[in-house]
């Protein structure tokens, strides 16, 4: 019995250690971003090693991005988003899972790099080499806008599988109602706008260019951006 208990403890410890493995790296963060691990908020910096079941939260006008350690994919979280990161090693490859509770998440995934799924409260999207934006709004509506490749979306409540290819947007309601349509200019603009906001730095930068006037005096042109 004692041996069994000891084995259980060892297995539990091993499981904890395995669970604590690094699965991703935080490659960018801007504004107010929280990192939650084991129900505790952590202080972090760019380059933080992210572990399985870590939760990233972005507030208004904030942005975060991370990469899984197999370098297969880049995930960008835009303002007011909540994502749980998880991954497990399977047959020498990393099976990656991005759970989007709410907000907007852009995923760029290389093909042939292991399973990659995006979970929303109502759907599971599987991809093999693609780029798409996932949005979950306050009413629980999931929206997938595919800009490259193809995405298979399974509706959790019905088990129905949808397919959305490049240029398409799939919308699934909490009740499982769905539609796949051509992406509208507003859908594409939303992605571009989010990326633009993410690329803006919080503090403006200034470049000073020295120039000489006709009298030979040095003057400066300041460009703030």
């Amino acid at each position, binding site marked *: 019995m004692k041996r069994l208990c000891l084995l259980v403890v060892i297995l539990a410890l091993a499981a904890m250690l395995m669970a604590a493995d690094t699965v991703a790296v935080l490659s960018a963060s801007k504004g107010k971003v929280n990192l939650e691990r084991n129900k505790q908020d952590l202080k972090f910096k*760019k*380059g933080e090693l992210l572990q399985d079941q870590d939760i990233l939260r972005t507030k208004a006008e904030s942005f975060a991005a991370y990469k899984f350690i197999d*370098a297969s994919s880049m995930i960008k979280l835009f303002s007011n988003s909540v994502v749980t990161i998880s991954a497990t090693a399977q047959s020498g490859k990393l099976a990656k899972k991005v759970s989007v509770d709410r907000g907007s998440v852009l995923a760029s995934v290389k093909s042939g790099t292991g399973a990659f799924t995006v979970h929303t409260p109502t759907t599971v999207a599987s991809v093999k080499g693609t780029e798409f934006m996932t949005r979950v709004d306050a009413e629980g509506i999931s929206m997938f806008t595919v800009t490259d490749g193809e995405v298979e979306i399974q509706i959790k409540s019905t088990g129905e599988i949808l397919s959305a290819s490049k240029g398409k947007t799939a919308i699934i309601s909490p009740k499982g109602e769905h539609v796949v349509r051509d992406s509208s200019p507003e859908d594409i603009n939303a992605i571009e706008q989010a990326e633009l906001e993410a690329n803006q730095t919080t503090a403006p930068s200034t470049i000073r260019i020295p120039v000489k006037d006709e009298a030979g005096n040095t003057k400066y042109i300041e460009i703030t951006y």
Partner: protein
Amino acid sequence: MKRWYFSLLLISVAMLSWGVVAIHVSPQDFSPGSEVELLLEVTQGGEELATVDINYRMSGEKIWLIEPMRHDSADSPYWRGMIPALALANNEVEYRFDLKYRSGMAEYIPADSSLEPNYFLNPFAPQGTQSTGFVLLTDESSISADEGYVLAVSYMALLPDLDPGSIKVFVGGKDVTKRSEISDSVLLYREDKPREGIVKAIVTASARGKQIYSDTWITQVLPGSIKRGLPFTLRGSANFSTNIYDVSGDESRPKAAENDYRSWADLYGSYGILDLQTNLLISSLEDSNRQPVNRYTFGLQLPYLDVFAGDYSPNLSKYTLSGKNVRGLHGKFYAELIELSVSHGESMRATKYEDETFKTGTFKQEAMAARFRIGSENGFMVGINGSRHRDIVSSLDEAFYQYTDALGDTVYTAMAKDNLVLSMDARLNVPDQHVMMGVEVAGSLYNHNTIPGPITSAELDEYGLAPGFAGMELDPDSFADLFVINKNMEPFMPGRANLAWNAYLRMYLANNFLNFEYSETGSAFNALGTYAQLLDSRMLTISDQMSLGRLLTISASYSFSQDNLTGHKIETNNYQNINAQAVLRYPKLPYFKTSFYSNTGKNKMNSDVADESYVFSPFNRDSMNMSFGLGYNFLQIPYVPTQLDISYRFGNDFSELNNEGAGFQAQTDNKNSGISFSLNNRYTRIPLRTQLSFVSSNNKNSLDDMEYANSSIFLKADYSFLANKIKPYVSFRTTGLSKDYGSQSYKNYNLGVESYPIHDMTVTADLGIRSYANDDTDDVDYSSTTFRLSLSQRF
């Protein structure tokens, strides 16, 4: 100077001056994270060398770091040393050899002439194979310094073969493994305050016992908007070593050396434009009645100001103060068009010797020197230099330098010297044309005994020089603070013999480094602030080093020297030296090397000095040495890459004298030959390293019909345990003397262990046993034991 210009002489540079001739074939490249072994083969004059050090630094840095070289054995031409892995990351490394002679002289290979380039090592692919399994997760090509530099690398694809404990991370020329966060599948290195510029990063590791390495990742760090404090960087080492000696054997055995310990530390720091250095050496051999062994130096360098306190060897000019240690204060203020250097301190300490019947000592010698330069070092400049070295009579009690004998005469057991040197130098440097020419003219005054004090008016009368000295209205007494004038001056009346001058022209022309130098030194020229000048002589030196890319380097020099410059001696001696070397190396093929050295001399009668009673005895001298060698790094041999160097030498030394017209008779007639062989193996599958060197030489004296032979074999093996943390080694060296030497042999056994308990710390314990056996002579056999413990921490 343009970068290509430096790269021309990477293969080999020959020694073209002083007494040694050496060949070095630079490895050219290094693998980040691995030390580089350097081999210097001294083919001529090796017996004059006391120590050889490697000076190295990352390209662009000011401070030279030092690593000592080890001489294989007294009769071996090989000196070996190592640039530590710590210094070899992914930046170019510059190095040179610092040779110190038994006479105290020192010089560099390549020469420190500001025209010849030093050796360079370029970062090469690390050992092993490149792996795509290292994946960069932070792949921004440029970042702002405000963001901080982050290197995140995944090696998930290499698991489970890769050993995370073997991972080494190199960023910006430094091994940053210790500061990296290394997990099972990812490593992370972060620098919150990176410097602007290009940052290169590379990762090495071992997988299944084989060495692998990543791509080199390049990131540009752009200036940030946040003003940051300047980073303080510190490099150097702290060291301790102790030696314990014992000798046992027959009565006539040599005495055991005094047990000793020494601690030394070399610290080099930089903070923005400020460079600092501290060098300390404390030895148990320090004795207030010997010249100092302990050394301490504190230095500070700013863009326009250098200040050194303590032991320092300034180079003001060739004839005033050059390469000699002065313990004191040294300052140099310099700008593009002006420079003022001042040194003041003690060049000799006062020491006393006393036994039951005799007392003597050494006076404290005070050194003062100054140099004022006007003009640009990159254009035309003129310098005025002066130095004074004076023995301070009051530094010794009278009993230690003089006594009165039974006849009432004063007898000096030590004499106080006074030396004043003034010189003027000029140089024209045209960097764009790679041409430099210059001249220095110096005059000296030397007094070999100032104890009697300045000459008096009455004594001047005796010389017929009253009322002023040398026809000038000058009172020697009032002049004594600067220089003591008395009858002990050499010569009493200064003249042309007190002068020395040299002129040189150096240029780089069509792949040739050409150097022409001519000098004349008067018979009474004395400069205590420089190493011995060859007095009463003229010397012409012409040398050339030619490079054809990295393929072929040829160097040659011719020098002619002649004494009796002033023509007052009946005989004049002429000597000619010719020295040539060549190294041919084609990438991935063996290198070939050869050297030639010739010395011829003869005397001739000086017809201007008439002395009919003198019988002239002409002599001729002709000696020659030549060597051929080759080397190769056999990377193709599976499991045992082998580095080979082999040389064969031969030569002769012949001289003859026609003694008083009796016809020429040989004075010396020696022929010598020898072979030296070095084999280094670094096994790939096991952490074993072996070294074998063999030296054999034979010398035949035809006059006495004697033949001498000696040979030595050196074997060493070391093996690393616990991921290179502990490295025990064993070595054996035997030297046998045979033929007309009789049968003698020396055997050395060494057993030791090197350990690396913490990062960049080395602890070495070595037990050496040496035995000497002479089969022909009784009572001279002995054996000695040496135990050595050393500790070194680099940072």
